[in-house]
């Protein structure tokens, strides 16, 4: 268990490709923290620097205040699970789990005790201990890799896209083992993923990355509801946040947002009004599930047209045209009886509206 601190890390490949750019992050002791971002965002390079496979060009990495920046991987007291399960195929399940413990010079009796405790945490039946790892499916191998990694007490556990190659049912099971073991033992876990769903499922904190930098580091709930930029709002959620370009004008407590062809009137906190860009150009952001749509509407609602309406599971997914070429996605309860081609009224609840500066795309 340990607090992991990354300070001003920078990594450049081939003298020109900036993979990680002045990245700082404090990972508190006992939490699962995700590095989340699209491919090429720098999450893998960051992870490799934490593990010691890559030395930063600049910056410092500390564990519990101890500088490990230049320590080799095997001296860092970290365990790692990769995208492709790494198991000793000639060994039995038991010997796979025992190997890192034997390497640490542990007595065989103690090893057996640890494996006895770890196996049920990963749903591994004692009767299967003798089976050869070469007979296992990919999902079972990944489960073994996880059990193998968590069998040893480490400062930090690094999970690099561990669920990318397992089937959906096994993914749920493996994610549960990780959640459960962390709930009980409060390990410090760094979880690298491109999947927003996996990050939201497993993490205590998420670091959303793009172009070698951390855009936002916060709890899953805050990242989802208060994204700091249009990218973060788009990247999380299915579908992601809707964006509409508007010219904002303050009018005594309310803000008139002119979208060119439609007008939204929102009550927004006074603080917003002072921080508006000088030219008034903003992007109104709102999540599909927070928009209300009706056939009748009330005063102030935006008249619009429904382009399509399809029930997906328990909800309707609507595509709404606010003005020519201005389309938004809406997730509505199925009792909202709106069909394709209907004239509708759209309402953006004030508390769910987020305004972004149109130039910087940062939240105001």
């Amino acid at each position: 268990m340990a607090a992991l601190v990354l300070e001003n890390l920078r990594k450049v490949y081939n003298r020109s490709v900036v993979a990680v750019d002045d990245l700082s992050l404090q990972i508190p002791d006992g939490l699962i923290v995700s590095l989340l971002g699209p491919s090429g965002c720098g999450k893998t390079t960051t992870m490799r620097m934490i593990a010691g496979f890559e030395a930063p060009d600049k910056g410092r990495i500390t564990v519990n205040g101890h500088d490990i920046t230049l320590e080799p991987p095997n001296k860092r007291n970290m365990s790692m699970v990769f995208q492709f399960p790494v198991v000793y195929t000639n060994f039995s399940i038991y010997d796979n789990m025992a190997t890192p413990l034997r390497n640490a010079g542990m007595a065989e009796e103690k090893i057996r005790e640890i494996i006895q405790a770890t196996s049920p945490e990963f749903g591994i039946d004692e009767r299967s201990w003798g089976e050869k790892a070469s007979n296992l499916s990919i999902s079972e191998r990944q489960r073994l890799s996880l059990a193998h990694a968590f069998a040893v007490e480490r400062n930090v556990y690094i999970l690099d896209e561990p669920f990318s190659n397992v089937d959906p049912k096994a993914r749920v099971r493996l994610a549960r083992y990780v959640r459960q073991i962390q709930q009980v033992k409060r390990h410090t876990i760094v979880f690298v993923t491109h999947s927003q769903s996996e990050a939201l499922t497993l993490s205590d904190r998420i670091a959303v990355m793009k172009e070698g930098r951390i855009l936002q580091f916060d709890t899953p709930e805050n990242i989802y509801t208060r994204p700091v930029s249009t990218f973060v709002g788009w990247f999380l959620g299915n579908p992601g946040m809707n964006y509409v370009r508007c010219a904002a004008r303050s009018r005594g407590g309310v803000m008139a947002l002119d979208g060119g062809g439609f007008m939204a009137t929102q009550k927004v906190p006074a603080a917003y009004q002072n921080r508006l860009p000088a030219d008034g150009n903003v992007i109104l952001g709102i999540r599909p599930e927070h928009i209300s749509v009706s056939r009748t509407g009330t005063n102030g609602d935006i008249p619009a047209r429904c382009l399509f309406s399809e029930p997906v599971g328990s909800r309707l997914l609507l595509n709404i045209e606010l003005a020519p070429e201005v389309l938004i996605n809406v997730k509505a309860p199925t009792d909202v009886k709106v069909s394709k081609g209907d004239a509708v009224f759209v309402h953006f609840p004030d508390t769910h509206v987020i305004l972004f500066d149109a130039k910087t795309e940062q939240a105001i």
Partner: protein
Amino acid sequence: MQGIKLEKVTKTYGKKRALDNVSLEVEEGSFVCLLGPTGSGKTTLLKILAGVETPSSGAVYFGSTNVTLVPPNKRPVSMVFENFALYPNMSVFRNIASPLLARNLPKKDIEQKVGETAKFLRIDRLLKRRISQLSGGEMQRVAIARALCKDAKVVLFDEIFVNLDYKLREQMRIEFKELMERVKITSVFSTPDPEDAFMLADKVAVIRDGQIRQFAPKEIAYNYPVDAFTGAYFGYPEMNLLDCIVAQRDGGLTLESSVLQMPILADSLRTKLKARSYSLGVRPEHLKLHAEGAPSGAVDGREQQCILEGSILLTEVVGSDTIVHVSIGSDAIEVFTPGIYREDVGKHVYLSFDPRKIYLFDKDSGQFVGRGA
């Protein structure tokens, strides 16, 4: 031309039956989703429609014409693949025009046709760009434009979203939907993903082991699946299935298992049941999670509720919603909860559902028996 039709089509490869006596009629202008797991025969079916495979027996009709032995290039059909099969170094114009160029049509006619199609699909401003400069959504439009330019009357889509990054898939599915609403061309779209079918289809054909299990408007397939496989597969998330038996109690017939005892409310169902095993189907969206103790009284205005008791295995966020996996006895049940929801593993919870919303299947044959109301 009036739609397309497969009549008792069987296709064997050696001893393997890829398609087994498949009949299917796609009405003109309708969008059919061919939904099934890997290896169920989806691609074989599309290839037979395209003409690149010949059925071992049975017939294929385009309108009233038997085209079973007509080669692909003589059929008014176009196929769009997962990677779109575009020429990456050619311009958008050349890609869209390629079927017309191959026919040696006059240049002016080609320009006009490509221009019109591109405008309709809102890619007219991209005509001079190279394919390698386009986004995934734009490539999708170019591939569809090329299919339309060929004067295809039928477009076949073979798992076009399958290997996409999830974020791109979500975006392309919505764009694709909006596009197809305007194009309105006879389409068959194969996919293993029920979400595609919910979102895109007029009718869904659920296929398994080379057989079409059910071919129906999607509301019908959702509400009245012909069997447990279809009920489970055409669901998002999948329907929960619980083993149970019918028992006679003082109050009448009940469905029972080790974790559940529920009344059978529907007369129509009561008369059909025998003293034997059934699979009880409950959709994840019909279950309500109670994390703070057992619900008392009505839930959502419904008095009569069935209650299950268990503990949370995992709160799994998918997109903007959460699937709560709950362990009930020896079963794992999925509950759909809107929004981002997190709860500890092992938390004790209750689930409630309306007995009218259930599905019942025969345990042995899997056949649909009835709904709760």
